[in-house]
């Protein structure tokens, strides 16, 4: 029951502080109904689902992260810094990637001597930076971790190779080329590693279908995994 006397007092003529408008992230999906595939409409979480915003953490980052970014002192090479779930991510301009890796490895106060390889991620909705190469580094000296991320657009999928800094990236970059089509310039032998040499396409990209065949069981047909409804 709402009665006037249990509501908070609102002073008339009060100055409403101006709230800076938060840019709303783009809409990923709209509407609850209108599925065309299976007729299964359960599980829709809302009428409008927005894409997660791209994070950029302001200082202070907390922990050793501030010290790390200060020691690196290459703010002009870093597009944005993200601290999320206790992990530091440096989004690096691709043309400066090798330089940043070199400094991360060699600077005595940084000493990220162990690289855990290159992983790719394909974000088709991020125009101009669809392909990401994600490098996880670990410093044994200081027992620290950092993630370095460089991106390239689909039309120009070039990222400089970091094999010169971390020789172990040889196979990792071949794998990322194989699966995502990111061309690592300067790699000593960028060939396919998992797929056969004459394979067409890059299977882990989002526009590459999973494939599969529908399964029939007692008259009912269950669609192939990539044809099934996603509830996201």
């Amino acid at each position, binding site marked *: 029951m709402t009665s006037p006397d249990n509501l908070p007092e609102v002073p008339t003529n009060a100055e409403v502080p101006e709230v800076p408008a938060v840019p709303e992230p783009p809409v990923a999906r709209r509407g609850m109904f209108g599925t065309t595939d299976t007729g299964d409409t359960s599980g829709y979480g809302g009428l409008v689902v927005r894409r997660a915003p791209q994070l950029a953490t302001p200082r202070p980052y907390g922990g050793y992260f501030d010290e790390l970014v200060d020691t690196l002192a290459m703010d002009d090479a870093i597009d944005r810094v993200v601290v999320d779930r206790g992990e530091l991510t440096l989004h690096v301009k691709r043309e400066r990637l090798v330089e940043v890796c070199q400094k991360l490895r060699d600077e005595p106060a940084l000493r990220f001597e162990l690289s855990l390889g290159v992983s790719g991620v394909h974000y088709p909705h991020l125009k101009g930076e669809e392909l990401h190469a994600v490098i996880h580094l670990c410093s044994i000296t200081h027992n620290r971790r950092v993630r370095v991320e460089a991106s390239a657009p689909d039309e120009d999928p070039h990222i400089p190779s970091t094999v010169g800094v971390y020789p172990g990236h040889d196979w990792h970059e071949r794998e990322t080329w194989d699966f995502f089509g990111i061309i690592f310039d300067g790699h000593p032998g960028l060939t396919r590693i998992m797929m056969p040499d004459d394979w067409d396409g890059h299977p882990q990209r989002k526009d590459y279908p*999973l494939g599969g065949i529908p399964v029939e069981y007692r008259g009912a047909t269950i669609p192939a995994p990539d044809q099934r409804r996603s509830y996201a």
Partner: protein
Amino acid sequence: MSTGYDEATEGKVYSVTGADWDEVVSGVRDSEDERLVINMGPQHPSTHGVLRLVLTLDGETVTEARSVIGYLHTGIEKNLEFRTWTQGTTFVTRMDYLSPIFNETAYCLGVEKLLGIEDRIPDRAQAIRVMMMELNRISSHLVAMGTFGMELGATTPFLFGYRDRELIMDLFEYITGLRMNHAYVRPGGVSVDLPAGAVDKIGEFLKIMPQRIKDIRKLLDENPVYLRRTKDVGYLDLTGCMALGITGPILRSAGLPWDLRKSQPYCGYETYEFEVATERGCDVFSRYLVRMREMEESLKIVEQALDRIAGPLKGDPVMIEDKKIGWPAQLALGPDGFGNSPDHIAHIMGSSMEALIHHFKLVTEGFRVPAGQAYASIESPKGELGAHVVSDGGTRPYRVHFREPSFCNLQGFPAMAEGGQVADVIAAVASIDPVMGGVDR
């Protein structure tokens, strides 16, 4: 040989199957070129899966060694993007099929990090994870040592290794229902609590196992043939390991006590007492010693974890108490194997509408994971196993990438084999202990 080849560019090609080398020997005898390129595989040269080695020989010396992988690529990472987060465990467990519990745990730690529920995982679940991982470490090392003996021409270590591994397989089967590919560790905990009698069975195992490890040590530690085949073979020092990103027993055989269980503990490893085994030889024999000591240390951890599971943590939950995340059903052993427990079915069908809704939602669509990315890493028997998990906020992984230690370590093979004898190639590969299911994923 049915595949086409061009003798003008590749030189004379011989196909050798089995011990049929006469043709090659007679052919090479008259040849001007002393260089011989050998293709080992793509059948398994060393019982580790389908691996192909291309060796360039000058006499008996390997001048160039390359490994060719990809024969066991199954697209696990791609497949994950089309299943729910929980279903993912059934895929990742098949990667490195000799250490399934580790694959599951790395993946689940990544998912839990994304969900932000690391602190809410029940202690009992963590203790069971630790115990299962350490049992799994022993079984993985036993296979590594067993197949290693066989590759060098001795069948006894193989029989020993597999006999003892069988004890652990039996335990796994008793606890999870499966010998391999358990999908036992799930986001939020483990799929099912230890069945009645499991603690006693593990207790018995702990009584038997130390002697079994001693038996293997007695057989190999000072065996002159074994020493000749392994000492100063497959040398890779700390600099090489660091440059190539090699971790695990190979790194520790080069003298660096780097073990994530100590340096960046997870699942409560900081509360267990154990030592990190290191050696300084940088060779195959040192790796053997490291693995043997790790098995002994693992037994200590299993014992401590078992004490907690049977003692203070007895009766605690093994799945996170969050209706929106925790898998609702506890499994029970029925006449036709593991299935939903009758109690649970009675609960959702008879008494709680809420529970029925949660069960339905979790099983059909799964839980949503907040958008972002996380990297979780654990110390698997082969080295650092990392899971880079990306979510877009949905009920399915957006991208999962595994930093597979076998994949990274196998890159070190040319550095170990080049300049050595052709006979030592097998020893070098075996000491890396690559499992191709993990390498190719």
